[in-house]
């Protein structure tokens, strides 16, 4: 075994410090310092904090935003990136996750970014490696960099998350974005309302964090909100469910009319990819309150901060 754990000053026992596995176990102060570091990052002006470092992007699932965003973030910091995907790699030949990450460590990875369909896969890798592991989305579990860029986006428009009314509408059960966002907003004292049909929002969801409110009526959920985060609904996930596609659209689609119930300056958010005409109307996606494109833009500095933090860089002012 090449990757032997040694002399770590990690936050979680047995995990290399600088890893980002989920929001759940992060302290609010740690999150805030990451967001502050992100504000100092400018993708247009390269800052070679990671010059000569190798960032390995291991993607077991398709991705547009997260992958390109991490890649550009790494390159903006002067790092070398290599993308490994399940198709066209030895993963297709049955190589296990651990053997794959040992291999990537052996070729010289300094940071490993993992997107994986199984919940907990990045943690498994981190437990067996001596380099920081960044979770770029694991199954239905967490998508921490997305939650961080969402918080970053909100804070560019609102002074604080504390007391903010944030509503999340859609398929929360299957959503790693939702789980990370809920943990993050909750740590900063936001009032969170979750909205969706029972198949997408089981009662159990209320146990995820303190102070969650569940709603089955989108109008009630959106009313008075400071931010409305809409989640993608995958048509295939409606198969065999109590609620039909038409019924979902009728009851839960975020329309201009429904968005009007939110505060005037409410932000309309969506982690993407969006399905126009399903979870939201095209009109809403492109409305002035929509920060969907801005979220994607903010992904780059936030991920620059995540990668710099991974190797203990970028803490001071430039």
């Amino acid at each position, binding site marked *: 075994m090449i990757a032997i754990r040694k002399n770590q000053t990690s936050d979680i026992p047995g995990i290399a410090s600088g890893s980002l596995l989920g929001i759940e176990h992060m302290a609010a102060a740690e999150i805030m310092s990451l967001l502050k570091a992100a504000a100092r990052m400018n993708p247009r002006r390269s800052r070679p904090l990671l010059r000569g470092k190798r960032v390995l992007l291991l993607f077991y699932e398709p991705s547009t935003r997260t992958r390109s965003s991490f890649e550009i973030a790494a390159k903006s910091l002067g790092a070398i990136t290599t993308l490994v995907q399940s198709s066209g790699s030895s993963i297709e030949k049955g190589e296990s996750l651990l053997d794959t990450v040992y291999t990537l460590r052996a070729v010289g990875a300094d940071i490993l970014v993992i997107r994986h369909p199984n*919940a907990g896969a990045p943690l498994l890798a981190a437990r067996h490696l001596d380099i920081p592991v960044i979770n770029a989305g694991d199954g239905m579990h967490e998508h921490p960099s997305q939650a961080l860029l969402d918080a970053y986006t909100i804070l560019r428009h609102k002074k604080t998350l504390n007391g903010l009314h944030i509503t999340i509408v859609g398929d929360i*059960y299957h959503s*790693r974005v939702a789980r990370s966002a809920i943990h993050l907003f909750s740590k900063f004292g936001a009032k969170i309302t979750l909205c969706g049909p029972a198949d997408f929002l089981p009662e159990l969801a209320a146990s995820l964090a303190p102070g969650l409110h569940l709603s089955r009526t989108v109008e009630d959920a959106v009313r008075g909100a400071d931010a409305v985060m809409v989640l993608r609904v995958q048509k295939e996930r409606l198969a065999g469910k109590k609620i039909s596609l038409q019924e979902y659209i009728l009851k839960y689609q975020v329309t201009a009319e429904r968005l009007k119930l939110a505060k005037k300056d409410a932000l309309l958010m969506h982690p993407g990819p969006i399905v126009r005409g399903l979870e939201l109307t095209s009109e809403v996606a492109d409305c002035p309150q929509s920060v969907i494109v801005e979220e994607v833009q903010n992904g780059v500095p936030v991920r620059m901060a995540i990668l710099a933090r991974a190797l203990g860089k970028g803490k001071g002012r430039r």
Partner: protein
Amino acid sequence: MNQKRTGSLLIRGGHVIDPAAKLDAPMDILLRDGHVADVAPPNKLRDASSETFDARGLIVAPGFIDLHVHLREPGQSYKETIASGSAAAAAGGFTSVCCMPNTLPIVDSPEWVTWLQLPDRRAVVNVFPIAAATHASKGAVLTDFRALQRAGAVAISDDGRPILNDAIMRETLRLAAEIGIPVIQHAEDTRVTEHCSMNESPTSFRLGLRGMAASAEASVVERDVQLAQQFTGSRLHVAHISTAEALKVVRRGKRNNIRVTCEVTPHHFSLVDEDVGDYDTNFKMNPPLRSVADREAILVALADGTIDAIASDHAPHALHEKVVEFERAMFGITGLETALALAITKLHREQKIPLSRIVELFTSGPARVVNLKGRGSLARGNHADVTIFDPKKRWTFEVGKSRSKSRDSPFDGWQLTGKVVATIVGGRVVHRTD
């Protein structure tokens, strides 16, 4: 096995607990030629030719019987063999184990039932095969129960592949009733638990894992109890029961004089779903660890007699099958070597369940479920299967020292109370610790 003459052994100075014989007193026991020759108050037995076992300060009990183990042979000897699994059984105080048929191939023929019992398997304890109910456990075509029973099968089960089809289950219970063989059901409605890897709970939601609903167990138990009462003499046994809901169904069935029995595993009475922590695959098994309320219901059912036996569901796997993504990890953990100590630590010491009840759950309870003649009690003339243990001995379980080939135990490093001192099968000491 163990049919040859083994000489005699006098177990002196111990405290005998034999619930079937209503015995809970200091007694000496003389074993001769593979059978119990005599049980008498201290210092009454004299046999000059016999070896003596000093059992002072120890509990002497009938040999423990485990209704539910996976020995992985034929076909998966990389996980476990009958030799290694039975050595683990001996270390855990079990003198008899009933092995599940979900091997490669499935034990669905008399030939395989016979094969499991051959001396070549090098079993160190008694091995009683459980045979499949349907061919290849596919749930479609019934096996020949009579022939399987004649070859030595003590029960019928498609363990791990529950029989969901009503007509097939009805026919299984009917034919099994005719020949008096119990039917063991792994109660899980697999139609609703697909892709699930733990109990449906706040923990499963937090971890983003699909959760098995408790009702997926209870609904099958409910259906089976309904079917079982239609046939006189049918004997339904619910494997590794894990939910309050299913226990209610069994309790009701027993009250209505339906012959339904059930077993519980040490991990289900010791752990809960939260213990999965952050994807620890040593806590992944099927049925999954359940809620605190389910565990409490299990503790009540253990004390009030609803549960008939403690069974380990010893399910060994190789490292490469467990040190993987949680959702891809195999279900199952080992359990033979920790069962008694967990029962003493969690049930006797914490819950104040009497030792005699615990011994019953390991001996006469399981013996009755699969109708093992001459076992489960130390009555004169019975098989000389004896388990001797120290109920006060504190020790630390180290999985690295396990006799099993597998290392998947959630109890590694646990401080436990109660340790097996000697395991005697057919009058021969097959395991001994000092």
